[in-house]
């Protein structure tokens, strides 16, 4: 396989997050099931992997879950997780009859399905991929693509300062692997489906690891669906490492609509080489507790990243969006547009940090987070943060929180449109600004459909 990304090798990705504000006492319960699994994990003969798992385990044992004393976790409290005894999910026997898709009915395409973190070949298909493109499960790739994995896994997502990444590494076993060779354009969206089955009787956990590599001049579109079945308590602790090569473009879209008992924790770490573009959009509607961390590093000149999303929460849901954009090289562009809708006593968190390194002159950074509060009990905590070490840059950010426009609502109702429909129109209009960030029309439509479904549930 090709040589690893040298920029990624520098392991510059240790952010300044302190591990002060973690609780080691919570660690044993999360690590105990590992003893039983032991050598049962795939790829146990690979020394790099054994080391990575051991390091993750050691790290997590030392720190445990992050607490709200950790600056990055100030608004999201994982305390309740420690009260639950999670067991690794047993292989689910049930067939998954309703797989989500952005494809039109009857249209097939490349898709990998993971049930409780385990690859399901019977539900997956790699049909329609251009020659040379690799799309397979990590468990399988360990025996066939060991070198590729060794060169990339753990390069971006540093376990040192992120306890949950450490925990993910300790359990590292499966997840999707995509490798798009240089110059190859993958036209059809590649779907990655993650199903949390969950049972009433036992809280279950899984720790999928994804690896997405788009080599120089290539292009691909990846759509993730995270769905749940039932109300059982499930924990997905997902880590994704993304390598975008020179002049390559990776569109990475994700819809998280897990069940009401789900805890969804995700860390996406991306590096973008010269002239490359990493495009990320996350639509959050599910899970009782979710955190989406996106760290996108522009490690080459003239690189671009768009990190946007929408979060729609109600009831007692909690949705945390934490982004870090690092401009390491000159002439980079970053753009973030987030829109959130918060109802009942739900709470959303937006933390957006833009770091411009001394070398990154002519950086153009833009960040926007707008929240719409639909009830008095709804809450948004917004924390934008600019850290600029270069003098010739353009960086702006804006955060707003507001309510539905009463004048507009009355205007619509005065034309015969009932309150729910009128609210839906206004919420849809509010969200459209972020949805426009989605370059792929089919996916924009699909996500609009998810939003329409969410609004429908409101009634």
């Amino acid at each position, binding site marked *: 396989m090709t040589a690893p990304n040298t920029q990624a090798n520098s392991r510059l990705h240790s952010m300044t997050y302190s591990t002060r504000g973690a609780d080691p006492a919570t660690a044993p319960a999360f690590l105990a099931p590992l003893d039983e699994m032991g050598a049962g994990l795939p790829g146990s003969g690979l020394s790099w992997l054994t080391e990575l798992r051991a390091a993750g385990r050691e790290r997590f044992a030392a720190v445990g879950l992050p607490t709200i004393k950790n600056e990055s976790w100030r608004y999201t409290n994982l305390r309740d997780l420690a009260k639950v005894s999670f067991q690794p999910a047993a292989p689910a026997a049930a067939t998954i009859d309703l797989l989500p898709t952005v494809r039109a009915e009857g249209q097939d395409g490349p898709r990998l399905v993971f049930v409780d973190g385990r690859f399901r070949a019977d539900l997956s298909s790699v049909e329609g991929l251009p020659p040379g493109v690799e799309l397979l499960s990590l468990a399988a790739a360990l025996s066939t693509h060991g070198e590729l994995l060794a060169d990339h896994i753990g390069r971006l997502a540093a376990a040192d300062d992120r306890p949950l990444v450490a925990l993910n590494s300790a359990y590292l076993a499966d997840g999707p692997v995509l490798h798009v060779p240089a110059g190859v354009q993958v036209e059809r969206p590649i779907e990655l489906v993650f199903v949390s089955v969950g049972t009433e009787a036992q809280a279950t956990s899984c720790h999928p690891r994804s690896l997405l590599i788009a080599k120089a001049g290539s292009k691909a579109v990846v759509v993730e669906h995270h769905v749940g079945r039932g109300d059982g308590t499930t924990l997905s602790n997902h880590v994704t490492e993304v390598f975008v090569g020179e002049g390559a473009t990776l569109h990475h879209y994700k819809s998280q609509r897990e069940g009401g008992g789900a805890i969804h924790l995700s860390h996406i770490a991306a590096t973008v080489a010269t002239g490359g573009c990493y495009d990320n959009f996350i639509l959050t509607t599910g899970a009782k507790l979710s955190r989406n961390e996106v760290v996108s590093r522009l490690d080459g000149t003239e690189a671009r990243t768009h990190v946007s999303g929408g979060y729609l929460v109600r009831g007692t849901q909690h949705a945390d969006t934490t982004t870090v954009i690092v401009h390491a090289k000159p002439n980079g562009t970053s753009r973030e547009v987030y829109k959130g809708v918060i109802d009942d006593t739900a709470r959303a968190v937006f933390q957006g940090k833009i770091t411009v390194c001394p070398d990154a002159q002519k950086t153009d950074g833009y960040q926007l987070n707008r929240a719409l509060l639909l009830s008095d009990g709804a809450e948004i905590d917004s924390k934008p943060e600019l850290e600029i070490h270069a003098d010739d840059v353009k960086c702006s950010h804006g955060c707003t929180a507001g309510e539905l*426009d009463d004048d507009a609502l009355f205007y619509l109702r005065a*034309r*015969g449109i009932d309150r729910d429909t009128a609210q839906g129109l206004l919420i849809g*209009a509010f969200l459209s600004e972020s949805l426009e960030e989605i370059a792929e029309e089919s996916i924009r439509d699909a996500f609009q459909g998810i939003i329409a479904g969410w609004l429908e549930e409101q009634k």
Partner: protein
Amino acid sequence: MIEIKNLHATVDGKEILKGVDLTIRPGEVHAIMGPNGAGKSTMSYVLAGRDGYEVTEGSVTYYGKDLLAMEPEERAAEGVFLAFQYPVEIPGVGNTTFLKTAINAIRKHRGEKELDAMQFLKLIRAKTKALGMSDEMLKRAVNVGFSGGEKKRNETLQMAVLEPKFAILDETDSGLDIDALKIVAEGVNALRSPERSMLVITHYQRLLDYIVPDYVHVLAAGRIVKSGGKELALELEKNGYRDFGASEAA
């Protein structure tokens, strides 16, 4: 028939309407004139059902039904239409989507079949043409970037499409130059019919040259203090509202 009896209404605890009586029969066009602060706009909002306008006394009977007990959308579905003095801009909601949602909501309420995209377009094209509106205005977001005249034309278009039984025109002439006023008035006049009543609220007589009313009422300090035929408007134009205890300069 619309019967307003002894209507009292408060806004933020302040009484604005202090006992309005008015009966409007099908096909009639009534004008309400009055100085600023007389309660003209309050009256239109109370009739349309806006939050924050509390009726403390009196009743409004609308074709035998208690209008004040209805939600704004029910009133609209029952045929009440308020042409806004300041039509609201709604970024992100397309004018076409808005109109289609509105007409189908009302059709549904009336037990009529909802219009599909083709039927709707056919209807809307005919109406926009009559009002001298461009297709482009339909593609834009509701009232966003519209000139004053375009906004009022858009109101008239909605009225033409929704075919109300009782239309309230709140200061329709405000912000219009004479050409725009003529177009809007023509649109309104085209909608006059024996089944449709109108309440034209205006400060100036000018509008009534184009939308000629059957009756004119003077609203001052929350009450109708004088009623008459269309000639009353001309009298007001000449003498102002001084006779009714309000300063013209307000």
